[in-house]
């Protein structure tokens, strides 16, 4: 493509933007609001995800050993569990350590003179939280394990909730993306319609489809980009406010850090441009069939 042609495309796109200035403002507003809603949802979704992951990662399996195992048997168990692929962290807690911990919690005076009733145990964390149940079952089946605890029920429920949060989140995001495309394509359709004579003439002169298309694509992308910049600014400011408010009032909830949320925002610019281009592509289709 020649530089002059490129210049022509941008000139045409900008001219059309300013010529239909009120329509441009309306569509920028539409893109911005669609992306803000999308962003607000993203904000919610990634936070639920983050909190869920946080809770998930705290889930650990405690496996109690039978009493009276010799060192060799304990070492063998250790090896078996450590060799499981799903296991990420592994800690042996001896009878004595467990008793010390217990003493600390209850107060040493109370347990004076009582013989240690606690068994040896392993504390195990898994790489992916959804493996908790299967790993627990596997460990339970090993020789020399008395009992396995992992917060049964709670873990499964949590996984179900986060699974549905993700599914619904993706569905809603797709719906809003489709809505944005629809709004942009309607806006571009109006400019295309206003210039249908021009397009017709271009086609008769022998312009290729892409020559006709580019200015509208650029117009759509500019609309999408400006809309997304507005959305990004509003989202950035409001997340910062939201984060600080929650952190101050509900410090036990761990939210996605502001910086991490900001790192998602540049994609909104790309998404705005993509939606703009897609919208203008849809609205042009009919007019190119000359």
């Amino acid at each position, binding site marked *: 493509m*020649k530089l*002059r*042609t490129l210049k*022509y495309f941008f000139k045409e796109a900008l001219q059309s933007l300013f010529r239909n200035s009120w329509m441009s403002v309306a569509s920028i507003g539409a893109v911005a609001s669609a992306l803000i809603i999308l962003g607000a949802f993203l904000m919610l979704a990634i936070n639920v995800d983050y909190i869920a992951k946080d809770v998930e990662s705290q889930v650990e399996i405690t496996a109690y050993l039978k009493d009276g195992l010799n060192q060799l048997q304990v070492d063998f168990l250790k090896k078996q569990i450590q060799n499981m692929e799903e296991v990420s962290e592994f800690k042996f807690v001896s009878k004595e350590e467990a008793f010390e911990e217990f003493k600390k919690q209850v107060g040493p005076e109370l347990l004076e003179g009582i013989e240690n009733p606690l068994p040896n145990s392993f504390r195990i964390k898994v790489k992916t939280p959804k493996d908790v149940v299967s790993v627990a079952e596997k460990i339970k089946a090993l020789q020399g394990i008395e009992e396995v605890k992992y917060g049964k029920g709670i873990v499964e429920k949590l996984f179900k909730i986060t699974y549905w949060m993700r599914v619904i989140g993706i569905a809603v995001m797709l719906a809003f993306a489709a809505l944005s495309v629809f709004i942009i394509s309607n806006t571009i359709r109006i400019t295309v319609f206003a210039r249908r*004579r*021009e397009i*017709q*003439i*271009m*086609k*008769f*002169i*022998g*312009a*290729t*489809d892409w*020559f006709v298309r580019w200015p509208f694509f650029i117009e759509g992308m500019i609309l999408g980009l400006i809309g997304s910049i507005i959305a990004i600014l509003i989202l950035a400011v409001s997340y910062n406010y939201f984060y600080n408010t929650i952190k101050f009032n509900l410090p036990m909830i761990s939210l996605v850090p502001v910086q991490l949320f900001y790192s998602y925002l540049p994609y909104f610019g790309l998404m705005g441009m993509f939606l703009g281009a897609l919208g203008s592509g849809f609205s042009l289709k009919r007019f190119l069939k*000359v």
Partner: protein
Amino acid sequence: MIEMYNVTKIYSGGHIALQDITVKIQKGEFVFIVGPSGAGKSTFIKLLIREEVPTNGQIFFNGKNITRMKHSQVPFLRRRIGVVFQDFRLLPQKTVYENVAFAMEVIEAPLREIKKRVPKVLEMVGLSHKINAKPHELSGGEQQRVSLARALVNNPDVIIADEPTGNLDPDTSWEIMKLLNEINMNGTTLIVATHAKDIVNAMRKRVLQLDSGKLVRDEERGVY
């Protein structure tokens, strides 16, 4: 140069616009297409510039079968054809110069060539003095000259004119026809669909007469 073999066009509503047309037009010819409204003149032209595809039959342009042409190839066919319409179809916000230059910009001609070629073509059609005027400041005849200049600017093999004098008074019509004749003298093939009986009778060119979609007459040096 243009060959049609058994071309039939039936529109989706069932209307038969053209029926079994076979005709050859040689390079350098001047051909009038005459006939009452609805006889199929417009469809004939639409098929040539591939705005429509025939229901049956084949059309060749410079030996190339344009009925089997890919959509992406159509622009390159149209660059070999200059089209002139009854309603001029100029871009109202562009000047005379820009309207003509636009046809060259669209095919990405070099700027140097555009600057050289556009004034030359405007001189040919006698509009050198109106180069910076907008279409609405021009008379109908002048507007048609601009559209003719635009059709000519890329040196097409053929110029197709659909009722080029339909919106013009008799004197102006004559001027446009003389201009078309001059262009034809310079070697460009011309196909003109028209109602202008007097002009056709006076010019004594080849006449194709259509009636209800059929080619009823093909006469050298014919009359209306």
